[in-house]
């Protein structure tokens, strides 16, 4: 701690030389004893300090990567002092909560119809460029890891949707897995096909996906998510024509770049209504990929409303031996049987391999309902309302955590616009991101009856 304070003193009192700051940061964060001593000496002997500064300037150029991360982030600048000069813990919580609120507001600002039945192809660039090591251990491994997480999250949020995988390699595109609803099958296929070679061809990828997505029923939302590592595309023909073809087939193409922004990707996304982002680092990449998991707003002309015939299979009796139609193996009990053709299926949701009926269970439908009935964002409690805090509830309605800061002053809190109950910031995030229920509204019958009547 003393090293930290010393480091800060330097920045406050001394020159704004970045080299000096870098030393302070390096010393403060790595806790290297020799450097702390150096700084202490500098503190007293100005002359010697100047000399040392020059030395460090030279060293600075050849700074190691681990030192640079401290120097570049300038973490010492976010330190705050309280009245007595002690270091205050950095209040990341309210900061990150503010960011989350912004996200929430943009997401729910416009109540728009969402495309719940999605047919998504993930196009993964495994060309030579994916072997680059700027992401550790390599772009390919990082992308594969993020795609795995994405597939799981996608099926959790869109149980009625399907995913397919396409890989770009050696100038051609090939379909790794067909559209399907089983996360494990996709992940297994992807992990078995890791390896990079040749060039990437955006056009070939789009052509393939276009042909594949043209076969799906009209009510589905067609999407392509492209994870592009290369800085060029090696195409056999005119890619602009292909982009127009995608647009005509109503495929929403989104691209996440791993290297730099490419005009052709940007053009593709603009034309087809998708999103184009370039990832800065691995956490950012993860954030960008997962942004595609919740259903996107539906574009009215893109998908035609229709009634879909679906079956709700019952569990087969325990202990009955039958051959399942999906794996072609004899299994004992624990499966489902298709209500139309009575074929045995191992897991839901799926499409019956014999008669092609979409098979789901009622919880799968219920899993999507929260997209249709989102709960309203909670309001921040204004500072003026916080002043007469005797009237305010002392505990968070959800988790009973005290809403008072040390010193018995009310801390940051939010209130539901409907039931007026107060919640702590953590509960706010949990309620909106995972629970999708307001505990306050749910535990008041009167509010329910009012909303029921309006419905």
């Amino acid at each position, binding site marked *: 701690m003393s090293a930290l304070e010393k480091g800060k003193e330097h920045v406050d009192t001394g020159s704004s030389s970045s080299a000096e700051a870098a030393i302070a940061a390096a010393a403060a964060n790595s806790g290297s004893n020799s450097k702390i001593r150096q700084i202490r000496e500098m503190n007293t002997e100005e002359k010697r300090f100047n000399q040392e500064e020059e030395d460090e300037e030279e060293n600075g150029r050849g700074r190691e990567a681990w030192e640079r991360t401290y120097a570049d982030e300038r973490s010492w600048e976010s330190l705050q002092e309280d009245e007595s000069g002690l270091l205050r813990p950095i209040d990341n919580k309210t900061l990150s909560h503010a960011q989350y609120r912004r996200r929430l507001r943009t997401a729910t600002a416009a109540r728009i*119809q969402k495309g719940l039945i999605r047919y998504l192809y993930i196009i993964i660039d495994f060309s030579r460029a994916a072997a680059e090591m700027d992401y550790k251990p390599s772009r390919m491994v990082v992308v594969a890891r993020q795609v795995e997480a994405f597939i799981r999250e996608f099926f959790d949020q869109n149980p009625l949707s399907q995913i397919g995988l396409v890989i770009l390699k050696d100038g051609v595109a090939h379909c790794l897995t067909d559209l399907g609803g089983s996360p494990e099958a996709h992940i297994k296929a992807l992990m078995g096909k890791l390896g990079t070679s040749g060039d990437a061809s955006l056009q070939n990828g789009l052509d393939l996906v276009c042909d594949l997505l043209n076969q799906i029923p009209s009510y589905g939302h067609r999407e392509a998510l492209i994870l592009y590592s290369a800085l060029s595309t090696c195409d056999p023909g005119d890619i602009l024509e292909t982009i127009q073809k995608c647009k005509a087939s109503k495929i929403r193409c989104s691209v996440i770049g791993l290297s730099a922004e490419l005009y052709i990707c940007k053009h593709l996304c603009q034309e087809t209504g998708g999103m184009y982002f370039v990832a800065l680092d691995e956490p950012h990449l993860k954030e960008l990929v997962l942004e595609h998991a919740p259903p996107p707003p539906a574009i*009215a002309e893109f998908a035609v409303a229709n009634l879909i015939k679906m079956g709700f299979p019952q569990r087969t009796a325990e202990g009955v031996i039958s051959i399942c139609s999906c794996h072609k193996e004899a299994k004992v009990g624990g499966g489902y049987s298709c209500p139309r053709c009575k074929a045995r299926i191992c897991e839901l949701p799926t499409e019956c391999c014999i008669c092609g009926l979409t098979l789901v*269970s009622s919880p799968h*439908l*219920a899993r999507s309902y929260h997209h249709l009935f989102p709960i309203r964002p909670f309001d921040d409690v204004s500072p003026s309302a916080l002043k007469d805090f005797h009237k305010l509830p002392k505990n968070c309605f959800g988790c009973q955590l005290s809403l008072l800061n040390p010193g018995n002053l009310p801390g940051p809190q939010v209130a539901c616009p409907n039931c007026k109950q107060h919640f702590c910031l*953590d509960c706010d995030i949990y309620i909106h991101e*995972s629970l*999708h229920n307001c505990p306050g509204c749910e*535990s008041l019958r009167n509010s329910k009856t009012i909303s029921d009547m309006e419905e």
Partner: protein
Amino acid sequence: MTPVSSKLYADDVSLLMVLVDTNPYFWSSMKNTAFTFPKFISHVLAFLNSILLLNQMNQVVVIATGYNSCDYVFDSSTSSMQRAECLLEKLEDFVDKDESLSQEDSVDGIGFSLLSGSLSMALCYIQRVFRSGPLHPQPRILCLHGSPDGPGQYVAVMNSIFSAQRSMVPIDSCVIGSQHSAFLQQASYITGGVYLKPQVSDGLFQYLSTVFATDLHSRSFLQLPRPVGVDFRASCFCHKNTIDMGFICSVCLSIFCKHHKKCSTCGSNFGEARKQDPSASDQRTSDGS
């Protein structure tokens, strides 16, 4: 109370969230049977005490599921020694408050209690425990429920169930009334909890202590009641019939047993391109909330 960080949580320390159904209409319907509310509470109290005796670090939180509201009635980590008195006092306050909130004079039938509210509260509390650090007691939820299911709560209850499933919190359910609860059957099945409907309600304490008192770690060594086959068939919105095969609206996922030209829920016309009118499913949400 010792700070959480200094506690050494082993894998058999549990946090038990008990949701107690206090629906007065349900309990008055039980009057002519031998099993009344005071009897029920005495069984529950004995059970809570035995949980706290099993492991000194076990924690019990009781949430009352009322007819008009839900509230926390007891938390063993904050209450002092007189547990039973404390709980009964808070419970009585709650029942009075719940009654004063009532707007209707008479209710046809038993009416449902607010299961979705108490489930949501319990999950919020569990998230707080998860946030407290890497070492925390193993949470589980036990619903002691008697009222029939409220159809209007379906979406909210399902949301709670999926959230519990994602955070690996099992929902155990013990149904006291005469009929099975489809909500709780699904909840226990999806989250991997135990669903039980005692044959003899007078022996409730024995059921509770033999089935629901064991911690999650020890459950793998026991022969607990097998999950019943849960019927995951859906019922159609038009006739409320349970169906094997049906039609789903691609916009709002409403279930119909026959082919319609227009969706009665969201108003979209099927088989032709829609105009850019706001769908009624959105209107529903904006009106309803």
